[in-house]
């Protein structure tokens, strides 16, 4: 079976400055794959290129066999590929409920939306209690739950999570990772970027390591966890 997502030799720049060079990666259906690397390595840029927020100048992105390299973000989500961006990016003055509804913007059936709402409320009961509250008035942890839930509202087949544990207290970080595993159990394939390298590799099947926009290593999570180089560079051990 061909991979669900194939990123083939992409290069990306922000006005002249090259930040991704000749990067390739693959994700098979049902996997959790982690992208690791230091700050500024190009992890978010890679995800943005896949999501259609920026278009690589070279190379291509195939999702379920279809070339989505130059599709705008608003079309990519319709293919079943959802990106939860770095920094939550909730619609701050809308309520939790309205944020979640917009997560399902591509779905037109009221019943389907209501059913998805129930599913995410079951997963994050706090959001149900807060559904009439403006997103900006929630705590950071609650906002992060809301961002994940909003992503799930589109019922993606591939979910990309960009540092969703950032700024959360340890018990919440654990809860986020448990949630990711639970989402995968429901049949969603996951690509994850994390500062918590150890934790990410513990739930991931495979990982890619980026450095200044280039792929330096890849392997199974076990191999990466056992690699001295990785432990030194990213886990401070």
């Amino acid at each position: 079976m061909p991979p669900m997502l194939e990123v083939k030799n992409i290069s990306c720049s922000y006005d002249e400055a090259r930040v991704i060079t000749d990067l390739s990666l693959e994700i098979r259906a049902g996997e959790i794959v982690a992208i690791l690397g230091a700050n500024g390595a190009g992890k978010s840029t890679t995800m943005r290129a896949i999501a259609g927020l920026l278009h690589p100048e070279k190379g291509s992105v195939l999702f379920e066999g279809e070339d989505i390299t130059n599709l705008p973000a608003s079309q990519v989500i319709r293919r079943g590929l959802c990106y939860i961006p770095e920094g939550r990016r909730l619609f701050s003055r809308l309520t939790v409920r309205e944020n979640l509804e917009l997560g399902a913007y591509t779905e037109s059936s009221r019943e389907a939306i209501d059913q998805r709402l129930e599913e995410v409320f079951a997963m994050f009961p706090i959001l149900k209690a807060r559904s009439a509250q403006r997103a900006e008035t929630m705590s950071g942890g609650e906002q992060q739950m809301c961002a994940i839930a909003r992503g799930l509202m589109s019922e993606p087949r591939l979910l990309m999570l960009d540092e969703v544990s950032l700024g959360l207290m340890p018990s919440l970080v654990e809860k986020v990772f448990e949630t990711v595993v639970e989402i995968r159990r429901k049949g969603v394939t996951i690509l994850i970027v994390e500062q918590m390298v150890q934790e990410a590799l513990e739930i991931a099947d495979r990982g890619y390591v980026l450095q200044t926009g280039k792929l330096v290593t890849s392997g199974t999570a076990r191999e990466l966890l056992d690699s001295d180089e990785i432990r030194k560079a990213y886990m401070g051990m």
Partner: protein
Amino acid sequence: MGNFLQVLIDGLLNGLLYALVAAGLSLIWGVMDVINFAHGEFLMVAMYLSYWLGFLLDIDPFISWIAGGIFLFLLGAVTYRLIIKNSLGKAAMAPLLATFGLSMLLKNFCMNVFTPNFRLLSGNWLEGRTIAFGGAIVPLPQLVTALFAFAVLGVLYWMLKKTRLGWAIQATAMDKEAAELMGIDTERIYLLVFGMGGACVGIAGSLMTSYLAVYPEVGGLFSLIAFVVVALGGFGSIPGALLAALLIGLVESFSGFYIAAVVKYVAVFAVYLGVILLRPRGLFGW
């Protein structure tokens, strides 16, 4: 006492009209950070449309507002496609200068084709009709126009707050990129917002034709007032625009009556300067 009530009513009726004129400007500004300098000329175009529909085809302004709304929606959408879209993301002044150019074009076009003369539509359904209210005389064309304005604002507000399209518009205003990630086609939203801004001012212009004369420069004063209303009310806020417009209407009518007719706009802009000095984000701004 009778005078006071009369002045109060006049101020409120004008204020409601100003609110509708300003709402479109506020919406466009709030969602796209673009100042439509041709806003007043959009108003003028709608007035000419209703004037000629009334003059040539005997269609009353209280019917032709539908045509005004639709035509100005299209004018707004076309303006976005041909002028605004290309100037976005360039220098900050680009959309401003582009719409300023459009305003000159529209004004001079009407000046040439329709002459600078004032034209007042006569023979309207409500022309000269009034109702007495506690010693004040309320002219019906103004009253109905004000009620219409209030209703249109209500529909606009409801749409923004309660419908999925409204949330998508708000989301686009707050975080365009995140909105795109939700599947919202923000290009379409911009087009729609420009169209809706045009429709609001178009409906206002058409209704006004029931009691006000149209001439090529008519947009100037109204757009100035609309800018003041939007700045006072807080960019993008419909309730803010409504309250600010009522305030401006009242300041105008009270100063015009109790001080002197010639100072009414001085008073309006004095209030504006005062508020902006004390509260730069406007009375109701974020």
